[in-house]
């Protein structure tokens, strides 16, 4: 009898305990959800990488929202961590926020300038309405440089500022914009629909760091284990996306989450990986020189004044290192 009791005790000790998953609220702008820029998170969720790390990731979309609202969502407690484009983080940190980047999500973004079918050259954009993103962001900075290369200054066209590629694509389709800047996959879809591809942002700007996962330093210090789990899942997602054996599966995810054809999704992945354009990090690693490039672009656009801050002021890599990312 005593032996049976001992066995029973051993059984309970040895049996795996199904721990409650840790809820992690991840903030994203509406436009992010409707673009390829949510891909690392969507893949991690779909492939079970978050669950495998014991996380229950909730995607939280603040409305009204937008790239410039996501740090507010961190500060008012709406989200624990957030997706954000680098300039918005930099601006808020310089204004006193304790937010900091803990991982890279997208590098070297490729934005396309698409025009109505009758517009076949940059010169034909004079006096036309061009749909751009927030003037303080790298999308518009890079497209303005592209336009400048082709002889167009801001005085030569009418800028219509809209948040998110889906909104700008709608403007093009409704005929309210003569040209717009689009990310993936809507740029490939637009081209397939007959709109004219005039140029790519990468023709005008060097590589830079685009989107990040950010968190408040105070929250991160109190939740290090949760962050490390998140970063391990994110690393697994990047490795999955980059694995050529998973290319077809990733194309299906891009197709389903963005409501585009599989052919368009495959074209997007080909753009990223054939040849390798460094659009996606390998493991979530942060390239400080690419972040320094963002700071330089902001200064060039008049958004920052000298002395310019060092890139490492906006980054805390201890969590990436703890997650095994080199």
């Amino acid at each position, binding site marked *: 009898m005593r032996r049976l009791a001992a066995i029973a005790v051993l059984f309970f000790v040895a049996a795996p305990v199904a721990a409650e998953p840790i809820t992690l609220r991840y903030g994203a702008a509406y436009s992010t959800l409707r673009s390829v820029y949510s891909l690392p998170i969507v893949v991690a969720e779909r492939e079970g990488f978050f669950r495998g790390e014991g996380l229950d990731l909730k995607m939280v979309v603040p409305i*009204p929202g937008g790239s410039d609202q996501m740090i507010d969502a961190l500060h008012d407690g709406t989200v624990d961590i957030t997706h954000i484009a680098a300039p918005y983080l930099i601006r808020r940190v310089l204004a006193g926020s304790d937010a900091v980047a803990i991982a890279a999500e997208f590098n070297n973004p490729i934005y396309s300038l698409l025009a109505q079918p009758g517009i076949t050259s940059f010169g034909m954009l004079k006096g036309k309405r061009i749909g751009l993103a927030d003037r303080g962001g790298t999308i518009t900075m890079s497209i303005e440089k592209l336009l400048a290369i082709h002889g167009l200054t801001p005085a030569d066209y009418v800028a219509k500022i809209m948040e998110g590629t889906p909104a700008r694509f709608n403007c093009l389709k409704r005929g309210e914009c003569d040209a717009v800047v689009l990310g993936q996959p809507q740029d490939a879809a637009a081209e397939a629909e007959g709109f004219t591809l005039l140029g790519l942002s990468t023709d005008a700007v060097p590589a830079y760091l685009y989107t990040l996962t950010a968190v408040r330093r105070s929250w991160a210090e109190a939740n290090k284990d949760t962050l490390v789990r998140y970063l391990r899942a994110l690393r697994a997602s990047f490795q999955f996306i980059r694995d050529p054996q998973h290319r077809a599966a990733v194309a299906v995810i891009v197709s389903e989450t963005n409501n585009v054809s599989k052919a368009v999704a495959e074209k997007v992945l080909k753009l990223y990986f054939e040849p390798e354009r460094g659009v996606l990090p390998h493991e979530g690693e942060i390239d400080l020189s690419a972040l320094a490039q963002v700071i330089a672009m902001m200064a060039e656009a008049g958004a920052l004044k000298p002395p310019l801050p060092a890139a490492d002021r906006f980054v805390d890599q201890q969590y990436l290192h703890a997650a095994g990312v080199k």
Partner: protein
Amino acid sequence: MRNYGFILVAALTLAGVSAKSGGIVDEHGDDGDTIFFGAVKDTRGVAIEGAHVNVKSRNIEFVTTTDATGNYRLATQIDPDQSELSCSKQGYRQNGTMRRTAPGEKSPIEIDCTLQAGR
């Protein structure tokens, strides 16, 4: 089993976007939007400004705040039959929700939420 619900909801997340600063606005959204709207009041019927309103569907939550008249509005393509609305504000607890739109209607969906003082 893979969580296809997450992907499905993400794919359905198509709606108008606005931002408070920078003059960035697109109120058009896409065809098939589901509009959630309504009011948040206390148990005496007084409108509550600044209450958080969440519309949740599986792993995605849309969060907004009521205006000075206690009203909110969210444009999404979340299926209202698979969504759950809640409201909150510090110093209050949720008392209940009242869907005013008939069952089976897809959009707009009017749902009021009541908060009760106290925790």
